């Protein structure tokens, strides 16, 4: 009998303790944000979509060789006057990309890099698998809207 009463009291106390924790959390500041309306700012090292500075690229193919999933296709062309190599065709398959960032690590001229885009959905499959990295306006439709500084 005594044990039973003790168990009931201990049980009630433990549940009140738990309710105290949840009650405390009710008055804490919310940690979530209203996502589609306010967006978190990405960190400096964030690895988003693969992007290119075409004028810096020397078509050395190192990024193509290191890519673990073969997401990059590069055809080098040589300028007949200056004898310099430049990318004739440079396409990127976002479907295969695993966002590992190895391409930007091996690039000797810092031409290829991963940008800050994180909303990477497309309406058409063809647009997704063959992104022309030499075009300047390839990610215009993904331009991030106003961001909220969430992360330090």
């Amino acid at each position, binding site marked *: 009998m005594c044990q039973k009463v003790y168990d009931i009291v201990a049980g009630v106390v433990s549940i009140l303790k738990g309710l105290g924790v949840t009650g405390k959390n009710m008055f804490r500041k919310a940690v979530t944000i209203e996502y589609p309306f306010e967006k978190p700012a990405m*960190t400096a*090292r*964030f690895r988003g979509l693969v992007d290119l500075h075409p004028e810096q690229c020397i078509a050395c193919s190192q990024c193509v060789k290191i890519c673990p999933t073969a997401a990059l296709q590069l055809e080098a062309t040589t300028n007949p006057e200056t004898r310099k190599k430049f990318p004739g065709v440079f396409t990127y398959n976002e479907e295969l990309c695993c966002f590992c960032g*190895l391409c930007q690590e091996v690039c000797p001229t810092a031409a290829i890099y991963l940008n800050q885009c994180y909303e990477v959905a497309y309406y058409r499959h063809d647009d997704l698998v063959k992104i022309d990295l030499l075009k300047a306006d390839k990610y215009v439709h993904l331009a991030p809207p106003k961001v909220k500084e969430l*992360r*330090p």
Partner: protein
Amino acid sequence: MDFQELTINMGPQHPSTHGVLFLQLKLDGEVIVDCQPHIGYLHRSIEKIAESRSLVQFMPFTDRLDYIASMNNNLGFCLAAEKLLGITASPRAQYLRVIVAELNRVASHLLAIGTFAQDLGAYATPLFYALRDREKIIQIFDKICGQRLTYNYLRIGGVAGDLPAGADQLIKDFMAYQRRILPEYHDLLTGNVIFCARSKNIGVLPKETAINYGVTGPNLRASGVAWDLRKDEPYLVYDKFDFNVVTGANGDSWDRYDVRMREIEESLKIIEQALGGLPEGDPVAKVNKVFRLNGEAYMRTENPRGELGFYIVGDGGPLPYRLKVRSPSFANLSVLSAMIKGMNISDAVCVLGSLDIVMGEIDR
């Protein structure tokens, strides 16, 4: 009286099987007579992929094995590759590796505790508190390496980049926060009568059974075996730190929860010491991207789930001849059918939740 066995298919699409696990349960009323786990729904042939990738290229794939603790997977593979190639990372890189590995252990244990409480019926509240705290670690990782889940931060011979400015302060803030918030978990779960009644003496895993099945990690330590590779076979700089190997007494579901809770505190202790003694230097290694692989190497490390081993065989070329992953979750899952025979079906979910398996590394 005559009875008929009822076969129930639990999963592969079941919220409490922690991924795509398919359990075939044979029931006599509510009592489980037989349990047959079926795996393979998340098979991506990562070991076969490794045979067509160089070691540097394979690093992102190790993230996808145990996706809750990617840093520890990176670490295991890195150390195996370094053992094969005879490379040693710089002291600063080794300390950074310890810091990120222990942070990821805390994140992994938080998620394990949260999902375990949810499996027991404490719907959403503990899980969301755990996710809230794990989010802080993920934001630190986002700052350090630029991703939230598939980090790909470690490199053969070092790490991908030094700590960015302000990251060490973030880690210190997180440690202070986590130490302040841990008593809340104890108030919410550890002392709760319903939680204790649902998990104490449920799914007892005896010491001998655990060793026979090759169970490792917190599940083994909860059964009372003080086996921790960080202590018993120190790699990196773990022998320089002062921490305890946490063990449980009975090996029941509650002990497995309690061991994880106390391991979080030990991990915080290690992070604090590593941050305090962080040596100067360049953690980014200048090593080749392509190696000639000769011979073989096996390296095992202490993952949040147990003993993770990578076995690499080279035949002189740049690609591994064979790469084998010894995943802790596989051994931890195989003991399940021995544990839950004779139990009520509602307790099967409790035992499975307390084992904390990740299907990504079971199927590979």
